[in-house]
């Protein structure tokens, strides 16, 4: 509606009108103010079609409905950069699109290059939620926090929106002409040898093909890869063991015993979502299935893997190799070159027990080396797996998933050397942020100065963008076409759900420009690459008769079938073991790890991840130097003390967080914080551990000096108290006892029955919803927390509010420690609203804003809530969350409105909220069943947390349905209701955690009894 036709003589009149109006007025166009006949006509006729019905009293109600709907739509249109004229009611409604019903598209999310397939939910063109793709091998329908939160990045208002040249807004055409000239100049001068590409890990076949084409066209172009949390160690370890850098793929579905050597198999290892799922299946017990795989963890920084392990030993990262050697020696692994005895934290008895157990389960055991452990340990792990007969059973090898396999550190060092030598004329950084995350000793920023033309493509104007001449906004993966490989090599398709909100370009499009290729649009680039593959017969003809059919099929499925990399036969080289590297010194060790929520820094501006409590520390919004209680005492520091850390002359200041389970004499510095240039969310959070991280010690180093500064820095943790206080909260039992007797020892309490209440019990004639959470398979990863946040429009509140205990998560994962304060045992317990049958919250609400539903749900009526908070006070589980302030206020960031799930009410200030058992999903399932003329069946309703859970620890369903999974869970002997002795009769129940202890490791230092806790 191009109506801005105000002539200059009218403008004065318009100004006068505006000036004379009272208060703040919103006007849509100049014509509105002018009240031109066209506008009046337009108002009446054009957009709100039934507006004239206002005069008809009968249909006034209908008018109000339409008005509400069109206002909502008008609000939505204001948030995109689409021009207004496109937002009109559909003339031809797209096929399959039913207003109010979401559509799902298969696409992929990649972290560190490794793709996980997902299904993106789209409401009227707005992506609102991501779920795992059940047909994708890396997901099977599950997801994790990163995947769940990656959708928030799409709407991040701080994403870069414009091409910049030397910091000033420039045009895309300007960039095109510059890059064309520069490429041509360097090609003419020296065959393009001054052109360098720097990417993150690339697994996309299409992108690799494009780079190859570019290199074929301009042979001098060189491609470097750098990712701060890379897989160099795994690659170098495979190289040492087998003479080639093969990829290791595990099959946790076949394991009985797993030994993790500082590996966080639930987070860090590519394929961790799938591994978690497979391993959980091996650890899930029931009355009928009393088998449970055992997990040993020898680890440095406490992780969820160690927290879920049956046995955990804490050793310094530099000592893990010695432990591995001792186990290998005990097992008699051939070609082993010496060992040095056991480090502190590990005794010989344990080594023997682990070795025996691994040996006894040869072919069903698995040794997993940590990503941060040196190549020698990876080689050791390969040798161990070989020796145990695990190859081909629980471990297989394939060609590398990532293209351009090679050590990324070498690649980056080479680039920096060339930059310093002045050999680089044009550097194109595609994704990544090397200025921030390159090893400190390389001084990437200084080297960058020697490059005459620097181009950065990224989603944010970050540290690297700041130092580059040109910055080009990059698309989010939900805005772009691409493809990528999963952990097993399966090619996963990436397709856009929305036009680029910020006008970015994809890496494919940039490369097409660099190569002056014929196709310049992402879709055509990717599609034509696949067309070529089809033409070359690389795609199965089963997909369809024509390419178009096959193309639609792989886009629909999200995966290219049978694209998994074939397994390889590899043999250990003769001299695979070079012996242990130099003895680590006695100094304080520093460990660098990707942060469990912001990873290497790429998620620093992601509010959901910032506010998701880190699984072990429960910290939000900051990283901290993690130190064991004993070491903290020795250093004379305590949590929130700021210390000055110095390593090889590089210094950084960091707050201390005392973490039970951290090895003594060792500090862990999570990466990814202290960003100097990021958005509003990430600004001012944490400290930058990269400043200490040198290429000689990317993962750990010894010789840190710690000086107290006398300053304090507040950290926001969501859990202040870490002991169960001897209460029957998380039931932990002995697996052997369970196997023998079918039950476990736990305190016996009287659980009042339904008749022991003043109020008559409710009758549930239809459905009766219930949830069961298996603490034995729950790994405490907090994926459910982020999934719930995404599903239920849960706002973030910021660090100060979290520190004040006002976080809004509907589900939280409690983490308790028991036993020794330095070396505790860890348990996790997800807690959301229990939907009590005898709910303490319901009786105290003065206005009946929280009521008992006919299907057992404890229902929160936001519109009725007046905010007395009595319900929250009276909730024994403290799962209710109050909008103390206006947390969902998107006046400043209206784009966030697009993200909201339209099926879930957005709560206002002063209103209580809590887990609803995803009632919107129950209702949709009910509607679907009704439309299909059938009854709801088990599995129709899947809650967001349940769907996300990689361990499938959450079951949900109808308790009235005797055949349902939830009804079966209720019959399990391990099932119990949290605080059921209060008579609340919770509908969410738990299955007790079991520890599958090695019987030969005497239980003298194992604390099974909840009473025995000192933390």
């Amino acid at each position: 509606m191009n109506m801005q036709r105000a002539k200059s003589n009218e403008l004065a009149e318009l100004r006068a009108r505006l000036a004379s109006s009272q208060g703040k007025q919103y006007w849509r166009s100049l014509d509105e103010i002018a009240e031109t006949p066209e506008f009046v006509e337009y108002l009446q006729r054009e957009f709100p079609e039934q507006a004239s019905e206002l005069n008809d009293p009968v249909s006034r109600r209908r008018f109000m409905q339409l008005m509400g709907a069109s206002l909502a739509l008008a609000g939505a249109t204001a948030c995109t950069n689409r021009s207004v004229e496109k937002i009109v009611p559909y003339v031809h409604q797209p096929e399959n699109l039913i207003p109010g019903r979401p559509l799902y598209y298969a696409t992929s999310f990649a972290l560190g290059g490794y793709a996980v397939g997902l299904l993106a939910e789209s409401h009227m063109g707005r992506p609102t939620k991501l779920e795992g793709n059940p047909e994708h091998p890396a997901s099977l329908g599950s997801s994790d926090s990163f995947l769940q939160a990656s959708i928030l990045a799409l709407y991040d208002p701080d994403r870069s929106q414009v091409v910049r040249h030397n910091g000033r807004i420039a045009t895309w055409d300007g960039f095109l002409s510059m890059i064309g000239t520069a490429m041509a100049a360097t090609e003419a001068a020296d065959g393009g040898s001054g052109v360098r590409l720097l990417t993150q890990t690339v697994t996309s076949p299409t992108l690799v093909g494009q780079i190859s084409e570019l290199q074929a066209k301009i042979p001098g172009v060189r491609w470097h890869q750098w990712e701060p949390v890379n897989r160099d160690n795994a690659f170098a370890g495979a190289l040492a063991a087998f003479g080639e850098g093969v990829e290791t793929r595990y099959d946790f579905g076949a394991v009985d015993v797993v030994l993790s050597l500082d590996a966080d198999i639930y987070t860090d290892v590519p394929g961790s979502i799938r591994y978690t799922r497979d391993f959980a299946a091996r650890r899930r017990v029931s009355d009928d299935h009393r088998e449970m795989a055992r997990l040993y963890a020898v680890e440095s920084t406490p992780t969820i893997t160690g927290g879920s392990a049956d046995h955990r030993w804490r050793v310094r990262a530099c000592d893990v190799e010695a432990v591995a050697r001792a186990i290998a020696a005990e097992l008699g692994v051939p070609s082993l070159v010496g060992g040095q005895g056991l480090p502190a934290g590990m005794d010989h008895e344990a080594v023997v027990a682990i070795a025996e157990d691994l040996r006894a389960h040869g072919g069903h055991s698995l040794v997993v080396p940590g990503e941060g452990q040196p190549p020698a340990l990876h080689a050791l792990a390969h040798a161990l797996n070989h020796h145990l007969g695990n190859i081909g059973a629980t471990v297989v090898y394939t060609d590398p998933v990532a293209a351009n396999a090679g050590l990324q550190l070498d690649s980056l060092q080479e680039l920096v050397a060339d930059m310093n030598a002045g050999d680089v004329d044009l550097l194109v950084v595609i994704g990544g942020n090397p200025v921030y995350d390159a090893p400190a000793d390389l001084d990437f920023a200084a080297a960058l100065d020697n490059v005459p033309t620097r181009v950065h493509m990224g989603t944010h104007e970050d540290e690297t963008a700041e130092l580059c001449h040109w910055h080009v906004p990059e698309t989010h993966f939900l805005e772009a076409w691409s493809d990528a490989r999963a952990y097993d090599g399966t090619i996963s398709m990436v397709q856009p759900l929305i036009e680029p909100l910020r006008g970015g370009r994809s890496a494919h499009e940039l490369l097409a420009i660099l190569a002056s290729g014929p196709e310049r649009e992402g879709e055509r680039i990717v599609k034509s690459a696949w067309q070529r593959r089809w033409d070359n017969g690389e795609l199965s003809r089963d997909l369809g008769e024509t390419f178009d059919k096959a193309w639609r099929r792989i886009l629909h499925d999200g995966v290219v079938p049978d694209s998994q990399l074939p397994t390889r036969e590899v043999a250990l080289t003769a001299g695979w073991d070079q012996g242990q590297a130099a003895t680590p010194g006695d100094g304080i060790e520093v460990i660098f790890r990707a942060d469990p929520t912001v990873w290497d820094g790429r998620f620093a501006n992601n509010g959901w991840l910032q506010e998701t409590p880190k699984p072990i520390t429960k910290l939000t919004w900051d990283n901290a130097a993690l130190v064991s209680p004993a070491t903290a005492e020795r250093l004379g520091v305590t949590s929130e003390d700021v210390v000055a850390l110095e390593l090889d002359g590089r210094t950084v200041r960091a707050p201390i967080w005392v973490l039970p389970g951290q090895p003594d004499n060792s500090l862990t510095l999570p990466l990814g914080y202290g960003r100097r240039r990021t958005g509003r969310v990430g600004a001012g959070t944490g400290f930058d551990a990269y400043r200490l991280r040198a290429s000689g010690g990317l993962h750990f180093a010894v010789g840190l000096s710690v000086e107290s500064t006398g300053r304090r820095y507040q950290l926001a943790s969501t859990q202040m108290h870490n002991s169960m206080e001897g209460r029957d909260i998380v039931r932990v039992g002995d697996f052997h006892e369970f196997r023998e007797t079918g039950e476990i020892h736990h305190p016996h309490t009287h659980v009042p029955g339904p008749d022991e209440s003043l109020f008559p019990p409710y009758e549930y004639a239809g459905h009766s919803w219930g949830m069961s959470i298996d603490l034995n398979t729950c790994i405490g990863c907090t994926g459910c927390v982020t999934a719930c946040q995404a599903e239920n429009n849960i706002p973030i509140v910021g660090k100060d509010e979290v520190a004040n205990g006002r976080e809004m998560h509907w589900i939280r994962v409690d983490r308790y420690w028991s036993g020794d304060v330095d070396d505790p045992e860890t348990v996790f317990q997800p807690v959301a609203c229990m939907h009590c049958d005898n709910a303490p919250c319901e009786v105290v609400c003065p206005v009946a804003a929280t009521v008992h539903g006919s299907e057992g749900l404890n229902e929160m009526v936001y519109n009725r809530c007046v905010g007395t908070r009595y319900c929250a006070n009276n909730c024994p589980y403290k799962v209710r969350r109050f909008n103390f302030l206006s947390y969902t206020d998107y006046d400043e960031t209206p784009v966030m409105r697009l993200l909201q799930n339209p099926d879930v009410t957005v709560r206002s200030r002063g209103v209580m909220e809590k887990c609803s058992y995803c009632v919107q999903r129950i209702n949709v399932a009910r509607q679907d069943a009704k439309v299909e003329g059938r009854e709801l069946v088990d599995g129709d309703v899947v809650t967001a947390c349940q769907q996300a859970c990689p361990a499938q620890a959450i079951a949900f369903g109808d308790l009235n349905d005797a055949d349902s999974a939830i009804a079966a869970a209720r019959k399990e002997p391990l099932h119990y209701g949290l605080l059921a002795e209060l008579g609340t009769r919770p509908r969410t129940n738990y299955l007790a955690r079991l520890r599958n202890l090695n019987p030969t490791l005497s239980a003298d230092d194992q604390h099974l009894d909840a009473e025995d806790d000192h933390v």
Partner: protein
Amino acid sequence: MSEAPDVLKPDPVIGPGHSYGSITEKIASIVDTGRQPKFWWVGFGVGFALLQLFLVSAVWLLWKGVGVWGINNPVGWGFAIINLVWWIGIGHAGTLISAILLLLRQDWRTSINRFAEAMTLFAVACAGMFPLLHMGRPWFFYWLMPYPNTFGMWPQFRSPLVWDVFAISTYALASALFWFIGLIPDLATLRDRAGDRVGRFIYGTLAMGWRGSAIHWYRYEVAYLLLAGLATPLVVSVHTVVSFDFAIGIIPGWHATIFPPYFVAGAIYAGFAMVLTLAIPIRWMYGLQDFITARHLRNMAKVMLATGLIVAYGYMMEAFMAWYSAGPYEAALLDHRLFGAFAHIFWALIAVNVVIPQVLWFPQVRRSTTALFCVAMVVNVGMWLERYLIVVTSLSRDFLPSSWGEYHATGWDWATFIGTIGLFLTLMFLFVRVLPLISIFEMRTLVPGDSKGRGGSDE
């Protein structure tokens, strides 16, 4: 029946040498001289300034939301509820003095009932601010009341907060009526003494045509006695219901059957402390030592001592039951209070509410207005601390240690609290200025030797 020896007779409740006229003159002149002493202006000024603070903090609160206070998860109630209970408790003494002591024919109540009732009303007004302000969406406060509406919704009658609405509003209404009925004869006196038309009109309107006829007096006495009978159960019921806010709850530290009696005793304790806090300076300022005599102060001290002991017994039983019940959560909370994170609050409370008031056993203390004033102030603080202990510490340490949290009051918490003290002082000083702070006609009944006559004989 022989005359008791002088030493056994209680001290008189009115100073010697007073006649009807002198009583009327003394009390009524405070109102109708038109000029107030300096300390009135100082007191009113301070109160009025603090009232502005209240207005500012209330506006800010409504603008931003209750998040400006220190409340959080798990401590969903903080200063607001502490202050509510504190003010309501203070509001107890008025009705107790007026109604119960009237029924018990305690003649010493006469000189203190008027301003004690006023105190009650103003304290209830202050208390009433908090349930409104503490709501997340206070503009829907009326949803707590049963009224016909298009939602077809009643309040949820199982909630103690609904009971609170009824209990507090009933109490406020009954107290106001009682106070007003008691004022009518004095309003007539003021009407008759008023020098200008405005005064005559206002007091005359309020006096509702009181002419002092026998039938007036007869009806007055009946109405007053009936209202006293009506108000008496309210004294017990209000704080009982307020205590249900906690006792009905499931939280350790709240869920205790001792709460109703212990809250009522605590309320009387607090109420008498506040009456003393007000009476001592007022009698000194306006020279009313003849009317509010040492005997009044001593009696109030004794009531405080007695109710203080009940409160101490309540503390003891609460602790004993926590231990004796062997409930792990209650016992753990006790441990936190006695020896843990809240030990400083608990022992401070014991010191100010239990130990220090024991000095009232000594007659010398009961006779010393300074000492009494100090003890009363200590008890005022102590009763506030008690509510802090109940509200905050119970919520801070409930069932699941993972959700334990701390509560820190913000500046706005304090501003709102202090602001209501301003409201209270403002209302109190206005009351002293415009209404007789001691019941004139009832005082006249105390003039020795002539307790039957109506009206002065020496004018």
